[in-house]
């Protein structure tokens, strides 16, 4: 058989050149390359390319790069780091850990569920009656707390002044005044959201500055 008919495929020559062929396959290609000048040139081409790629220079950013980065990195105090580490250790890292955590949290849920099921199994206690009872208790409790807070707030001098001022403004300003006030407040909210976004969420780039505004 002529040597030409035995040329390894291009992919195999490439794999041989990058060293990813092993064992018999490698030996077979190696033996062919030794005898075949065409394939030898092909392998040399691959080696030249790999060497040239490996020799590409490592590029460096401008001096002071570390300082520019560190200006935007929050290095936490030791106690904060310790707290975060302690909290981090409480979070399971493996599937088994999650199973245990879910099981532990599931026990109170099962107990509570069993208790509710037992309550619902009583003939005198229906789901509807329990719902009415719970919502009634919640509404009464919320109402009492809110009334207590409101009465305390309204008894202060500042609250009296605010209520008087707002009432007199509403009487004198009319619909136009109200619209202007609403527009002004809307603009203020939009500007505030923008400033918060720029300063808290967007990653600052080189040369960009923090945004602030004063009243």
């Amino acid at each position, binding site marked *: 058989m002529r040597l030409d008919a035995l040329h390894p495929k291009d*992919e195999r020559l*490439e794999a041989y050149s990058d060293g990813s062929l092993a064992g018999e396959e490698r030996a077979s290609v190696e033996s062919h390359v030794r005898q075949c000048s065409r394939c030898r040139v092909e392998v040399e*081409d*691959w080696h*030249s*390319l*790999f060497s*040239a*790629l*490996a*020799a*590409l*220079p*490592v*590029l*460096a*950013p*401008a001096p002071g*790069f*570390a300082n*520019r*980065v*560190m200006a*935007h*990195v*929050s*290095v*936490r*105090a*030791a106690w*904060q*780091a*310790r707290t*975060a*580490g302690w909290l*981090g250790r409480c979070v399971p*890292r493996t599937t088994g850990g999650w199973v245990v955590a879910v099981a532990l949290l599931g026990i109170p849920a099962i107990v509570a569920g069993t208790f509710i099921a037992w309550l619902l199994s009583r003939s005198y206690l229906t789901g509807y009656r329990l719902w009415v009872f719970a919502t009634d208790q919640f509404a009464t409790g919320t109402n009492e707390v809110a009334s207590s807070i409101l009465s305390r707030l309204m008894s202060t001098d500042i609250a009296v002044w605010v209520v008087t001022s707002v009432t007199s403004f509403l009487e004198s300003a009319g619909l136009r005044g109200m619209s202007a006030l609403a527009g002004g407040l809307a603009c203020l909210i939009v500007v505030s959201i923008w400033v918060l976004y720029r300063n808290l969420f967007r*990653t600052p*780039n*080189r040369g960009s500055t923090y945004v602030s505004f004063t009243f």
Partner: protein
Amino acid sequence: MDYSGLTDQDVVERARQGREPAFRELIRRYERPVFSLIYRLVRDRERAEDLAQDTFIKVLNALDRYDPSYKFSSWIFKIAHNTALDDLRRKHPDTLSIHGSPHATTDDQIEATSLTPVSGEETPEEFTSSREIGSHIERAIATLRVEYRTAILLCHVEGRPYEEVARIMDVPLGTVKTYIHRARNELKKQLGHLRC
């Protein structure tokens, strides 16, 4: 304290404990590889500086979320790659500027924006020759599709194994092999005239 003898994982652990020198050690270890990768993806020095800076800010502010069972290098390269890709999607890639920004018009600007190779100890003749071949390869790499470019740079320039390249690029191993095979063939075709 000298951090140079510690593994990446140990340095990260110290950074998590709030030690600033550990943060600086991570920057020192990765600023050049990360900048080189990003520069060769976006091909503009100023943008590469900004994106490398963004990458480090994201990484160092999120060290608590780093899972030490993965290689730190995979994590930082993955963030660098995603940061560069996001930028490329937003802006059109610029022309190659290994010898200074294409926008530089004066000698001073060219000098200020040219890149600083930091590896290799060569004679002036070797440097001139390798710089010539290097610039051909840089140009050839710049013509590759961005996926091929990332794969070939991570594999051949950074020396990362295929599995790590797949993790960094978030694609299956077979896809990485295809990218690298096609990228190599395109480079070989383009650089055929440089055969010694």
